[in-house]
């Protein structure tokens, strides 16, 4: 199971640098070597414990408490979780998160298409194109949000000015409850396109060229080759990207925070679960309830990821 989560980039490298296959009996480590191994992971382990594991455990504990503003807390048992189950605001934000996740998943076929185009042999300026599509990945979310807010502005934005050419009166994309979540979703797709594209290009380049040679000798055209060879052999990458995309989408926060914001008339229709966590915990000082929301979300992510791992047996091909 674990070996299958390894990004396919490394599977591609396997050809040149063979790694022991899972299940192969490894040379057992001598006692002294093991000691060194532990010593070397100590710094990382300390960092992980102090900054991730311990806070996570504390958050779990706090999810059963009511939080005082300045550190005090009292045990309230399952009260917060009862509230989680009955909160219409949380239900709405869950729905928003689902819409957002489905939208970002639609970005995956787009990235595959883009990767296929930019993997074409003999394409000129290929690294320029790749850099252009990758730029949003290395751009700060705050900068992305700012620029897209200007584009989406209902009165002065270029999107509506463009639509006006065709006689369409565009909405206030980010402030209209009916469109805000989709407007944010599009930006999210746009900004993750480059990252997924790089993974897919790597996946495509790890497919042995002989397959294509054999196929063209048999008379298969470009499209046939794409759907008959590229897509099936790309499924490990597709699976990896899908899992990561869903996890990221379920944790979406920054674009909603930066582009919609707490005073917007569209915030209730576009806030994600993590945004609600922020609003409850940080803005309204209800840390205990926010902690319960976080753990409800964790449970959901675990469930969905487990389902994805079950489903992959049906559609993912490992060579």
């Amino acid at each position, binding site marked *: 199971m674990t070996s299958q989560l390894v990004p396919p980039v490394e599977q591609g490298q396997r050809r040149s640098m063979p790694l022991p296959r899972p299940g192969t009996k490894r040379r057992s480590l001598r006692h002294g070597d093991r000691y060194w191994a532990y010593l070397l992971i100590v710094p990382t382990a300390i960092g992980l414990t102090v900054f991730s594991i311990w806070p996570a455990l504390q958050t779990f504990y706090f999810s059963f408490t009511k939080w*005082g503003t*300045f550190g005090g807390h009292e045990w309230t048992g399952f009260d917060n979780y009862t509230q989680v189950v009955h909160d219409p605001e949380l239900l709405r934000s869950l729905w928003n998160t689902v819409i957002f996740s489905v939208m970002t998943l639609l970005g995956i076929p787009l990235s595959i298409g883009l990767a296929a185009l930019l993997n074409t042999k003999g394409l000129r300026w290929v690294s320029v194109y790749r850099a252009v599509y990758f730029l949003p990945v290395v751009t700060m979310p705050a900068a992305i949000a700012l620029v897209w807010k200007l584009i989406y502005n209902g009165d002065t934005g270029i999107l509506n000015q463009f639509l006006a050419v065709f006689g369409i009166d565009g909405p*206030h994309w980010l402030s209209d409850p009916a469109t805000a979540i989709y407007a944010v979703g599009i930006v999210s797709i746009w900004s993750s396109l480059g990252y997924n594209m790089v993974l897919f290009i790597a996946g495509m380049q790890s497919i042995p060229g002989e397959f294509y040679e054999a196929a063209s000798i048999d008379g298969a055209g470009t499209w046939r080759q794409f759907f008959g060879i590229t897509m099936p052999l790309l499924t490990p990458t597709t699976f990896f990207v899908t899992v990561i995309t869903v996890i990221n989408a379920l944790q979406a926060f920054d674009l909603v925070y930066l582009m919609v914001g707490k*005073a917007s*008339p569209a915030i209730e229709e576009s806030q994600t679960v993590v945004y609600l966590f922020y609003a409850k915990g940080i*803005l309204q*000082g209800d840390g205990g309830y926010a902690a319960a929301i976080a753990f409800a979300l964790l449970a959901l992510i675990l469930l969905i990821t487990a389902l994805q791992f079950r489903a992959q047996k049906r559609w993912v091909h490992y060579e």
Partner: protein
Amino acid sequence: MTRTHSKTKRTAFIVAAGLAAVTTLAACSSSSDGGGGGGDGGSGPVTISYGVWDDTQGKVMQQIADKFHEAHPDITVKVQITPWDQYWTKLQTAATGGAAPDVFWMNESNFATYASGGVLANLSDKLDGSEIDMSNYIDIQTEAYTFDGSVYGIPKDIDSIGLWYNKALFAAAGIAEPTGDWTWDDMVAAAQKLTDPSKGQYGIVAQSAPQQSYYSTIPQTGGQVISDDKKSSGYDTPEAIKGVQVWVDLVNKYNVSPTLQQMTDTDADTWFTSGKAAMIFEGSWAAAEFKEIPYAAENANVAPMPKLDQPGGVSNGLGNVMSAKSEQPEAAWEFLQYLGSKEAETAQADAGIVMPAYKGTTDSWVKAFPEFNLQVFVDALENSTQYPSSMNSAAWQDPIELEFNKAWGGELTAEQAAANAAKIMNDALAAEK
């Protein structure tokens, strides 16, 4: 033998390197406490921190701090500027860990939370025989920074709301500029004449920010946002509903204002300062901002809020407070007294950043902006009431804004939104102890 030896040496090296890293980290964290080795004040030079959130004001605060340093060479004040968006989050975390700045800014919404949470030093005992006389400050500000009968903050500044208008647009439409005699209906009539959809021009920007809208009108319709004992909400009274209704009507009935969506995409001030809206309810603080925008500096002026049923208004203002856990309480108190002195309060006015809370110093603020009729804001203080707040204002403020936004957007009537708001506030107040 040699092998073991070299191994031990290597281990020793790694352990030493690790220890060095750890001690460096420790050194970093202790130096960032800001206090440094001065001990318990009085003896030798000390450094104290002063937490503020405004960039422009931060520079003036540093000048005031430098002036203080000249008179007290032993005390150095470091002004720490944290942007507004992070100020309260950071302060809350720092206060929880006992590491709040020695002296810092407080606002009325958060004051009771921090005073009741034991974060702020009780100043009442120190006031006797000190240079501070609380009667020197505008009364509602003194009250605002008193909790449970004790003083926890020295008023720094105060604000009030006025009707800013665009002289050029009024002249172009041939309408007389607003005066102190204007009624609400006069304003609506003018706004209707100034609205011109073909030019994308509106009569007024009816923003939904509480202080510039219903907090200002509810006292004028005889209502209350929160009861005097801060135990119940006044939103569901007919008077308060009227105070909200007048705004909703500007947007949805008379259509003389941009919609809430338009005001979200392009903020309310920008509608006004770009000449796309002829009037706006804005605070005294806007004077400094409008002065920096050439178009606004040339065309804007301000008049009193138009009359509703009775005189009224709302004022907010900052206070300087000191941390209960300051390691340099004497130096901090010394600095706090200076911040509350007539000299320091006047320095803020001269720099034109805010209207000081010290009685009789507002004149220098009015003179700092000869292009605007700022006396309007000073006169408004006479009828101003305290900014609505309770022990845990944060629990109800944002959620209530969202409810009223729905009235602005036409999803709810003012009455329905007010009923929801009252419920939110009453539930939150009941959860306070």
